């Protein structure tokens, strides 16, 4: 360690040599030793002085055990705050567990046999695996910490018989793939229901070979048409969801005027002549420029008004309002005066195919995807979705989108 020695400490050697000369050492051997020492010290002085710009400290020869302990300490304090769980272990004993590992596996594991921390037989096989040149061996362990959990363990060889074991929690990823499987199962179930009733009615019509009363035939055909339309709207919703999934990470770029857009969508819900309007719009004169995708925002507004009309009583009014809040967000609220939603359903409303009352939702022609689509679109626009509801009073859905600040 060059930098830990002071250059001037090398002057000790020539002093010793001087001392030797002075104490009367004579003879050829003494002279040779003195010359050698002088030579050495000059070389040493040169070696030190070529390097003086580095910080100097006291010379000390660390003993190997101390050195190892210091190194261990340095490594351990470096590993301590690492986010993934790390163990330093030998086959017999866990030498160190960082904070994440103690959190996941318990603080008691340090100093114990590694099998105490990693009880699963596959984890044990990982410990027993022969050390290879590649260094790392890996295994996926189910139920390491609790049932349903999934951990990936990787063993890195540090030295002969000393390993670092990294434990990565893969539980949530396993959950995601499980959710994906659930989604496919749900979607096929949702498609199968209308399909089987279409098949049933068409088969009945075919079996009758025209000998059926026209009134009944017409009713059956009406059902077939309604179910076919349900499948069609479900497919459209599924397609827009999967497209949203694909582009959810790139924010929209176009500038749109929210007020005009909402007025346009509300106009779509205008009643046929002679009927009372069911949707009222309330908005100020100020424009609300936001960044967004016209089609998607239109879909959000349409889905929300559609929901409000579908689930509230036919004679109740749906209020749509657009306001600005203090933090520069444009707030769109869609408020119905329907039966309201019980509090325990609220957290699940944006889940795909979640229904508070499956029978009624299907009767109203819902696909179970409307709010999931709304949520995805709002998230893509960096906005916020909030659903508040009181049973017996009604439901208010609020969407907040950041108002575009014009640069002067």
């Amino acid at each position, binding site marked *: 360690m060059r930098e830990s020695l002071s250059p001037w400490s090398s002057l000790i050697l020539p002093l010793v040599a001087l001392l030797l000369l002075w104490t009367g050492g004579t003879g050829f051997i003494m002279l040779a030793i003195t010359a050698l020492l002088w030579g050495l010290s000059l070389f040493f002085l040169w070696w030190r002085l070529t390097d003086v710009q580095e910080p100097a400290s006291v010379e000390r020869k660390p003993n190997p055990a101390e050195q190892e302990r210091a190194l261990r300490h340095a490594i351990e304090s470096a590993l301590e705050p690492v986010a993934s769980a790390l163990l330093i272990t030998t086959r017999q004993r866990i030498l160190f567990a960082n904070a994440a590992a103690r959190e996941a596996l*318990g603080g*008691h594991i340090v*100093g*114990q046999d590694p099998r105490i921390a990693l009880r*699963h*037989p596959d984890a044990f096989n990982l410990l027993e695996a022969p050390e290879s040149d590649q260094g790392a061996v890996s295994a996926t362990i189910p*139920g390491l910490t*609790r049932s349903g959990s999934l951990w990936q363990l990787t063993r890195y060889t540090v030295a002969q018989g000393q390993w670092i074991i990294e434990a990565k929690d893969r539980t949530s990823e396993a959950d995601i793939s499980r959710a994906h499987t659930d989604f496919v199962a749900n979607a096929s179930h949702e498609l199968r229901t209308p399909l089987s009733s279409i098949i049933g009615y068409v088969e009945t019509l075919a079996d009758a070979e025209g000998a059926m009363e026209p009134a009944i035939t017409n009713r059956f055909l009406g059902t077939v048409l309604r179910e076919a339309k349900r499948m069609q709207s479900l497919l459209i919703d599924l397609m827009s969801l999967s497209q949203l999934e694909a582009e959810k990470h790139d924010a929209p770029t176009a500038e749109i005027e929210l007020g005009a857009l909402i007025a346009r969508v509300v106009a779509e819900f205008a009643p046929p002549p002679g009927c009372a309007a069911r949707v009222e719009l309330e908005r100020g004169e100020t424009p609300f420029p936001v960044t967004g995708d016209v089609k998607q925002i239109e879909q959000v507004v349409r889905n929300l008004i559609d929901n409000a009309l579908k689930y509230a009583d036919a004679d109740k009014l749906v209020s749509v309002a657009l306001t600005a809040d203090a933090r520069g967000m444009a707030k769109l609220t869609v408020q119905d005066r329907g039966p309201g939603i019980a509090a325990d359903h609220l957290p699940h409303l944006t889940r795909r195919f979640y229904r508070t009352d499956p029978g009624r939702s299907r009767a109203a022609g819902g696909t179970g995807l409307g709010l999931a689509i709304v949520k995805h679109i709002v998230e893509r626009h960096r906005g916020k979705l909030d659903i508040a509801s009181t049973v017996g009073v009604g439901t208010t859905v609020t969407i907040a989108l950041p108002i575009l600040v014009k640069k002067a």
Partner: protein
Amino acid sequence: MMAEHTVKAFDAEITSLRGLIAEMGGLAEMAINESIQALAKGSLSMAEAVIARDARLDKLEAEVDRLAIRIIALRAPVADDLREVIAALKIAGILERIGDYAKNIAKRVSRIEERTRFEPLTLIPAMAEMAADMVHDVMTAYAARDAALAVEVIERDAKVDAFYDSIFRNMVSFMVENPSTITSAAHLLFVARNIERIGDHATNVAEQVYFAATAEYLADRTERPMN
């Protein structure tokens, strides 16, 4: 954390004994989970793997016996060390029994017919998960010398027992309604019984953990009335 011993080899032996017990616990837990999976899926190859792996548990139990006797003979342990060794001896025996129950469940996989239509089969995995969780948590309590967790595991046994009772009733009425499936249903009844026994054995382990950690015996539980 226990105090270190002057003789380092003694420490190493106790650590290794605890490691063996933990390994047995892991094997027993996996045997329960896989035998139930084999049962639910009807996978004979998985069931055979469970049966084959049970030999490893037996071997480990013998290893624990040897090591425990060696420690007692050479080190003459006292106080908490003695409790540790005695608890290990007993727990090894219990875990081996748990493995046998799992093996027994695996052996019944091939005897259950018409699995897809067999409705009582859906209740068994939920019950088995509770029992397997008890085994998992009692082994965590052992590893951490956590007496409170051990007591908590013991309290959970009542739920497994209640589950067993409900499966029993369910199964009996199922047998009355579907006499043709009586053989399969009887096998499932034994499976449920085995799981219930696994839960009981988990509480036995918990009692040993409690004793090793606190030097006190838990008050005897009142026995559950038989069906």
